[in-house]
């Protein structure tokens, strides 16, 4: 890769040149829709759950496109010291541990591996947590901790095979450039079982939608585990370490665990027993337009549109109801970008009477998994995927 000094200097300076100030008068209770909005570097206005480290949610109206723009993708970091500056002259991806040899890959080295690309939904494990009943502590996401991005990078398997896995390898651990403010804070490290890392589609991505990753989404490289929750998609990746024993530090155990049963759920408000690491995403569908509480005209045609996705199995069908679930119609599905992508659905509707209407959508994936009508519950606020209700008024 050729270096362009003048451009590099420009970028360094540009990052700190311009400031725009906004003064807001916010209610003290920041629940529900009252989160402040701010414009972060390389981002459009996003909802601020927390500022240090940043957790930024995408407003639902930005999900009208098949591919989520880079500047609209949500942001979720765990530790206060996030990488604010990365120089690719210095950055190396180190691969080692229980391997035949150690690798220290520059970005140019990473780009020498076969380039793969696909579209995949990135969704936070806690997306929808604020809708849990009873409420649970943790990041109070509505449904905007998700996005559909075309990722490009190297196959993790190819990198691991170059390093050479030694017999007895059990887990592969990923670490990034972020760290806590105190040495006592457990570093954000995640792991996958070695068999999972050898699947064809696990990626070390260096591009999102054809551009380098934004800093807040993990420049210069991150892990992509399509179909699985974002907690494994370690950002600003610095180390891949193959281990001969299970990796069980804080962010794998006890954090990010779900009840060890088929639904990953327990009766509301109870204590969970045996747990497993959270993994594959549940099937979801979300109506994006009309948005809740919209008022529309009687006898005028309306397109009910939304997105549906599952944990890497693609969507077989989406059904839509305009009468609170009494009757259902099959929605039209949009362009198919593959099993990891979300698919857009739409249903043409013309309300004939005035009054309140409840719109619902229910998706089923290619192996028959669908969405429950009742909300599931677990103490960490994960896996939410119930059929949602969008109330609108017709006048």
């Amino acid at each position: 890769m050729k270096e362009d000094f003048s451009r590099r200097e420009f970028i360094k300076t540009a990052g700190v040149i311009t400031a725009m100030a906004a003064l807001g008068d916010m209610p003290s209770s920041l629940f529900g829709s009252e989160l402040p909005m701010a414009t972060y570097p390389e981002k459009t206005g996003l909802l601020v759950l927390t500022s240090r480290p940043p957790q930024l949610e995408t407003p639902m109206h930005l999900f009208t496109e098949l591919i989520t723009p880079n500047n609209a993708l949500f942001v979720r970091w765990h530790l206060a010291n996030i990488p604010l500056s990365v120089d690719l002259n210095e950055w190396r991806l180190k691969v080692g541990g229980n391997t035949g040899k150690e690798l220290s890959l520059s970005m140019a080295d990473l780009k020498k591996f076969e380039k793969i690309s696909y579209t995949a939904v990135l969704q936070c494990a806690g997306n929808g947590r604020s809708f849990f009943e009873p409420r649970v502590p943790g990041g109070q996401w509505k449904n905007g901790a998700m996005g559909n991005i075309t990722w490009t990078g190297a196959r993790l398997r190819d990198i691991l095979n170059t390093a050479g896995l030694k017999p007895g390898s059990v887990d592969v651990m990923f670490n990034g450039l972020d760290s806590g403010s105190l040495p006592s804070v457990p570093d954000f490290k995640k792991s996958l079982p070695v068999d999972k890392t050898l699947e064809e589609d696990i990626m070390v991505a260096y591009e999102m939608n054809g551009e380098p990753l934004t800093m807040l989404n993990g420049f210069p490289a991150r892990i992509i585990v399509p179909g699985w929750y974002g907690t494994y998609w370690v950002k600003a990746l610095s180390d891949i370490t193959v281990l001969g024993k299970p990796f069980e530090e804080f962010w794998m155990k006890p954090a990010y665990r779900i009840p060890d049963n088929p639904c990953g759920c327990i009766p509301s408000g109870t204590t969970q027993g045996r747990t497993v690491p959270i993994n594959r995403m549940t099937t979801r569908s979300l109506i994006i337009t009309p948005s809740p509480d919209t008022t529309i005209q009687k006898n005028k045609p309306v397109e009910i549109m939304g997105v549906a996705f599952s944990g890497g199995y693609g969507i077989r069908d989406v059904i839509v109801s305009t009468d609170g679930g009494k009757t259902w119609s099959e929605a039209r599905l949009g362009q198919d970008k593959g099993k990891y992508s979300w698919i857009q659905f739409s249903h043409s509707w013309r309300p004939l009477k005035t009054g309140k209407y409840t719109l619902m959508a229910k998706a089923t994936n290619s192996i028959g998994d669908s969405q429950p009508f009742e909300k599931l519950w677990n103490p960490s606020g994960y896996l939410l995927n119930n059929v949602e209700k969008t109330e609108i008024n017709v006048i």
Partner: protein
Amino acid sequence: MKKNITVIAISIVLSAGLTFAGDMARSITLPDIKVELKAGAGKDKVETLCNICHSTDYITTQPPLSKAQWTANVNKMIKVFGAPIKEEDPGKIIDYLTVQYGSGK
């Protein structure tokens, strides 16, 4: 009750045609977002100690939690994350959180 939040957002300006591809170094500056906690006994301790590791919107954006839930959270900060909270202080912090951001349970 109202509170003021000052949001200073820093944005990167890109000249037309400038692309990120091939750039060797990137840096960003984060906006400075002020969070105002509710007034009450223990507020100073909470601001000083909690801010060591995270902004206090981690508190203000939580749903109303019970005393048991706030206690579990504060204990996690001490035992898991190593928050340097002296022996006499966890009680004051838990009381502040329970009174100001509690569910009444």
